[in-house]
């Protein structure tokens, strides 16, 4: 587990460096935005707007070009922003700011739950493989190799194709408590996507856990425990697992970032099932780039900030704890 030495290392690194501080502040801000989305949002993110000519409001401080039809002639007009809509509206008149907040929910939920699934699958797999070694290890590592031979996005796409894009509605506590009137009573979690990102990334945890288990299995205290008659299960659970946690935590942090990128790619490609997602919003905006640059641009900034802040914290953990791990990384995932 986390020893005093490790803790002081973490603190020292944090004090010395500016970057983890930035990461922490930004990530906290995004977490709060996601958590309190129903309270902070200015509009119901699903409410569509009504404009006779299909105009969208640009973000505050900017103007946009549009057109109107006068006597059958198309005339260029300038669209002023609306004080109602901080970051403007999208192509169906929904409030971009409110959707940004709800999009953060989706990204972070899928990021953490998906990584959680990967940890639960990958860590036991790796520990068993590394602890027992030999043929068991050989066989299990071939399974891991098979997983690695699928690019994760490609496998994720195939899996979504198989299972369909099912969503799970999570009731919103703020709305239930009456604190956020007019907001959606539940948030749709892209269930298939969450499951699938876990299924395609567990193997990285398996590799790390295996490495740790191999290093530990011949340590004196493990052999001692074994000679005292402890069962393999006990040893795995009591000694090997706790010792492998540090690298797993570091990897998990980095993986949350790459899972967020993976989720956004799947949503971008139209496979998430929910529309309250940054990736979906970017895809929607792609067709409107000529007039409404902001629809695609703003959610992308959300993704980049979330991923950078998590990566900064990941770097900090890695530098302080110095585990030897390789994750998948993610920009292109």
């Amino acid at each position, binding site marked *: 587990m986390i020893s005093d030495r490790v803790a002081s290392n973490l603190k020292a690194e944090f004090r010395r460096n500016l970057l983890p501080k930035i990461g922490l502040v930004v990530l906290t801000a995004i977490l709060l935005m996601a958590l309190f989305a129903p309270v902070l949002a200015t509009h119901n993110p*699903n409410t*569509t707007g009504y404009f006779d000519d*299909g105009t969208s409001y640009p973000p505050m401080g900017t103007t946009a070009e549009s057109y109107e039809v006068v006597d059958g002639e198309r005339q260029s007009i300038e669209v002023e922003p609306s004080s109602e809509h901080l970051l403007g509206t999208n192509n169906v008149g929904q409030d971009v700011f409110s959707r940004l907040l709800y999009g953060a929910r989706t990204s972070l939920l899928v990021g953490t739950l998906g990584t959680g699934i990967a940890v639960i699958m990958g860590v036991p797999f790796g520990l068993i493989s590394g602890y027992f070694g030999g043929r068991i290890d050989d066989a299990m590592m071939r399974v891991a190799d098979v997983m690695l031979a699928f690019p994760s996005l490609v496998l994720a796409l195939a899996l979504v194709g198989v299972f369909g894009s099912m*969503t799970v509605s999570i009731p919103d506590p703020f709305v239930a408590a009456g604190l956020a009137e007019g907001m959606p009573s539940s948030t749709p979690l892209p269930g298939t996507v969450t499951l699938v990102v876990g299924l395609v990334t567990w193997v990285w945890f398996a590799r790390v856990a295996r490495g740790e288990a191999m290093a530990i299995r011949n340590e004196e205290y493990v052999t001692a425990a074994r000679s005292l008659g402890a069962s393999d299960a006990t040893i795995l659970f009591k000694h090997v697992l706790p010792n492998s946690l540090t690298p797993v935590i570091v990897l998990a942090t980095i993986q949350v970032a790459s899972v967020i990128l993976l989720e956004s790619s799947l949503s971008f*490609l139209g496979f*998430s099932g*929910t*529309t309250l997602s940054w990736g979906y919003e970017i895809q929607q905006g792609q*067709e409107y780039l*000529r007039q409404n640059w902001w629809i695609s641009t703003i959610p992308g900034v959300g993704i980049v900030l979330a991923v950078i802040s998590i990566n900064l914290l990941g770097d900090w953990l890695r530098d302080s704890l110095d585990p030897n791990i390789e994750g998948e990384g993610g920009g292109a995932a």
Partner: protein
Amino acid sequence: MEGADNLNAGRRSVLKAAGIIGTTTGLGAIAGCLDDPNEGEGTEEIVITQGEIIENPDPNDHITGPYFNVLDPVYEPLFNVTPEFEFEPRVVEDWEDTDDGAELTLRDDVVFHNGDEMTAEDVAYTFNRMIDPEVGIESDQAAGLGSIDNAEAVDDTTVLLEHEVAPSLAEYEYANYGRVVNQAWIEEREQPVAGDSADAFNGTGPYEVVEYEPDVQVVLEPFDDYWGEETTLERVVFNADGESSGRANALETGESDIVDNIIPEDVPGIDDADGVEIREETSLRNVFLVMKSGVEPFDSTEFRRAMNYAVDNEGIISNALGGYGAPMSQPIPEGVFGYNPDLDPYQQDVEQAEQLVEESGYAGAEITLYSPEGRYLNDADVAQMAADQIDQLENVSCEFNTAPFPDISDANSAGYDDEEMPFFLIGWGVITGDSDYGLAPFFTEDAALETLRNQEISEMILESQTIEDESEREQQLQEINAQLREEAPWVFLHSQDSVYGVREDLEWEPRTDESIYLWEIN
């Protein structure tokens, strides 16, 4: 629904493999002026860029509008279809109804591109090939030829088509489908005809294929031994780009002369560009929300009507479609035989909707609307707005999700009482121009896409198929459409306009059936 709704190329690239433009652009175009070996003098070449081109070269194995556009110059239609859906002689010179079917008289000077003469045997084989998989293929056009039982060559220029339905219905079927293939040539090949070179085509049309790159481009040049008039175009390139903005761009930069399916957002760009313009026409393609009548709460007619009152189609059309659409008043679009001109679209009326929901006994219902993405013009936007409008009702809550098209398609053919996905957006093109094609698959008992179980309506539709008198049949169809408006099996949304970008100096008008015929271009 690999069927008629395929007519619409999706607006987003993710759905259909996008293709490539054949000519040079940008830097290349500049360099091209200096020293392009391909540049001929005075060649009238036009480039048509569609959302998709053909998937395979077989003219009898698809039912997709843009594919017809590519293949029709090569495998010409048996009849000319006027923009008003009148049939005129082409390969078939004359036709008349007999006791047990229809007798087609063919031209005697039609030649295939490989030099073989076309015979009545070929025509009969073509029909049998489509309707009988034992003879030929599992054709997507088989459903469109549903009432034709058999084809037989009587002599060298006469073919007898057997059917037992009303002559006008049968005529709609055989005159719309059927691109004649060469029996001997086909039988040497695998079925359906595959292949990825110009050799994989052998029709009787005015153009022959000189170059074929699958999913990328088809290049046509005039066929010298064509029986008809001389062609006006010396070279035609069909290519594909899955993105509307990409097609708009190709038109604006002069890479392309006609582009299809321009979304409203790309219209201003084309309007502003020099030498090109937008041309639009209403289409026969409807977009609607299916409500499976065997599933709660949609088993209540009041509830289904409430949904129609909840939705503001005109608001959706002006917002999500940039005005390029017309509200639906009945299951079939205007211009189709049997359309009832006396019916009005449902007008949004929230109070009435809420009251009807109360009456239905399903107040407090929670429903979820599913929509494909990129299959129809701004489909997810349309559905999202409709779902939100329903959600605004005091006594109904409506969620919205997108779903992959195969799931929607499965749900569509899963029966009227399929619980899994009872409420979804889908489209249907009444491409034959006859109401039957828009009614029978959905509203007759145990039909493939049954969404409403209503014995009376089902019987009326079946009966209409056998009414010989044309005006009597029209009246019956109009009555069915009126009843269906009241039954509200769908949330009637709109029929889409088809919007093209065209080089200004081209003489060509879009058609409601979305066909692009090269012989109509000047």
